[in-house]
């Protein structure tokens, strides 16, 4: 038996997390990827190129644009009997559709999986990552969402078989009204190797640009705390934490972030943490690998200049 991975994509581009989800899914069986929507040729080609993918199944229908749960659920219900596991990234589409599908199939899903211990044994964090649950499912089929940040991406260089799936009966209920996208060409936050995060102590959206400048210097993605997003200094899709994005970069640089439990939940997977903060007692200063205590408005410009002087360029 095989496993089915639902591909997340936007504006004709396959989500960067897909290669990681495929790598995780490959631990469970032969991997098929489902690509749903209209005008998904590039997405299909990108999915077929991921090592370990056997088939890319393509459901072409305008009703599937926007990947709404109401439209995807009957399609996945129809495909599920062919698979032992149906898997999506623990991101907005997967989180939206997998529980709905689970209820329809009368199954308990296992979500936000961070480790696969066997075909039916998984680890998932609870309480904002302050505890890890090991669960066994004895159900006939397993519905999972997986945290991309917990797995390494599968290699590229494959030409999986592409086959159409009948989507003629699929009907979307929700009508698209508008999208508000964050402009810019920063790396994808969930899968970035380096992330620079800013807190509410930046003080304004204008000053938050300092964090973006440091990120630009390092070729890093930009993250933010909930308080910084609530205050309007950063867009919502930059939020890192229990309710935002979960990141696991090789290097996380926290600028003016004290380290609330909810923020720490999002950065536990970071390999190295650097903290810049005026408060030597801040939780993040204490758990960082390197911390510099002082005024961030002096430190960050000086750091950018110093990196410039050292010829750092990425």
């Amino acid at each position, binding site marked *: 038996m095989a496993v089915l991975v639902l591909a997340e994509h936007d504006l004709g581009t396959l989500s960067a997390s897909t290669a990681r989800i495929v790598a995780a899914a490959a631990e469970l069986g032969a991997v098929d990827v489902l690509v749903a929507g209209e005008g998904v040729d590039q997405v299909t080609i990108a999915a077929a190129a991921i090592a370990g993918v056997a088939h890319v199944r393509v459901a072409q229908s305008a009703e599937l644009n926007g990947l709404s749960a109401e439209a995807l659920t009957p399609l996945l219900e129809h495909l599920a009997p062919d698979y032992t596991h149906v898997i999506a990234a623990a991101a*907005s589409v997967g989180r*939206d559709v997998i*529980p709905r599908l689970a209820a329809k199939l009368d199954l308990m899903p296992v979500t936000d999986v961070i480790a696969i211990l066997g075909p039916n044994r998984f680890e998932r964090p609870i309480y904002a990552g302050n505890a890890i649950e*090991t669960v066994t499912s004895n159900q006939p089929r397993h519905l999972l969402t997986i945290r991309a940040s917990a797995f390494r991406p599968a290699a590229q260089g494959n030409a999986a078989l592409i086959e159409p799936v009948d989507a003629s009966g699929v009907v979307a209920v929700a009508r698209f009204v508008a999208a508000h996208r964050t402009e810019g060409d920063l790396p994808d936050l969930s899968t970035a190797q380096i992330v620079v995060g800013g807190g509410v102590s930046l003080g304004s959206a204008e000053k938050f640009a300092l964090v973006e400048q440091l990120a630009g210097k390092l070729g890093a993605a930009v993250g933010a705390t909930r308080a910084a997003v609530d205050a309007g200094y950063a867009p919502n899709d930059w939020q890192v934490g229990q309710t935002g994005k979960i990141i696991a970069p090789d*290097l996380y640089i926290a600028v003016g972030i004290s380290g609330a439990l909810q923020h720490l939940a999002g950065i536990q997977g970071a390999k190295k943490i650097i903290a810049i903060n005026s408060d030597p007692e801040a939780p993040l200063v204490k758990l960082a690998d390197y911390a510099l205590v002082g005024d961030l408005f002096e430190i960050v410009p000086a750091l950018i200049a110093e990196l410039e002087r050292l010829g750092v360029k990425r």
Partner: protein
Amino acid sequence: MKILVAVKRVVDHAVRVRVRPDRSGVETDNVRMSMNPFDKHAVEAAVALNEAGRADEIVIVSIGPKQANDVILTALAMGAHRGILIEAEGRLETLAVAKLLKAAADEERPDLVLLGKQAVDDDSNHVGQMLAGLLDWPQATFASGIKVVGNGLEVTREVEFGRTTIAIPLPAVVTADLRLNMPRNAGLPMVMRARQKPLTVRSIAEFGVDIAPRLEIERVSPPPEREGGRIVTGVSELAAAITAELSQLETL
């Protein structure tokens, strides 16, 4: 419009939980409990719709032990009209919760069910979507804005790339994200008045729902400890640490 809001009593979000030594779960005895923060945003959204003349009745439902009365009273103090406690001891899986809420929705026949997008204890983020599936209603998850337009809703959702706004017909299920609104703190007069509002206690058995767990929790472990590092003394030392890390990345 009639709104049903589901609320959960959880370990207060500011409490740093500890895993029990026998690894059977986290310590919840003698720990401060309160309404799941996301559910507060759901209650606030319902009360705001009522104040705007868009909703005429708000019914609160919670599933949990007797003490879950407290979180229902909090919601009633915020402005909801009546409450239902489905009394249940021990841990319930999200699928069982969704089935109980489906039974409650079948009885109450609301036009809209509002819930928090996730509970901060098990962080599942399942119940709203499951309930919508069981009811065969449209769903709008992770809502940061709700507008009544014609006979339906326009909901702004927080998603991977930013925000998206969708239009859905009623009846529907909407799950609240934290930027939906600022939940009010009810003053003492409202808290006193809440005690006069109807609150029905029902036993879980009345609903005839299969609540047997599907997953076995083998153990609950503490996360790996991070070792604190060192304080560097200046920008040049920090820059050196960063460039050392960067050169490690290059070699990967």
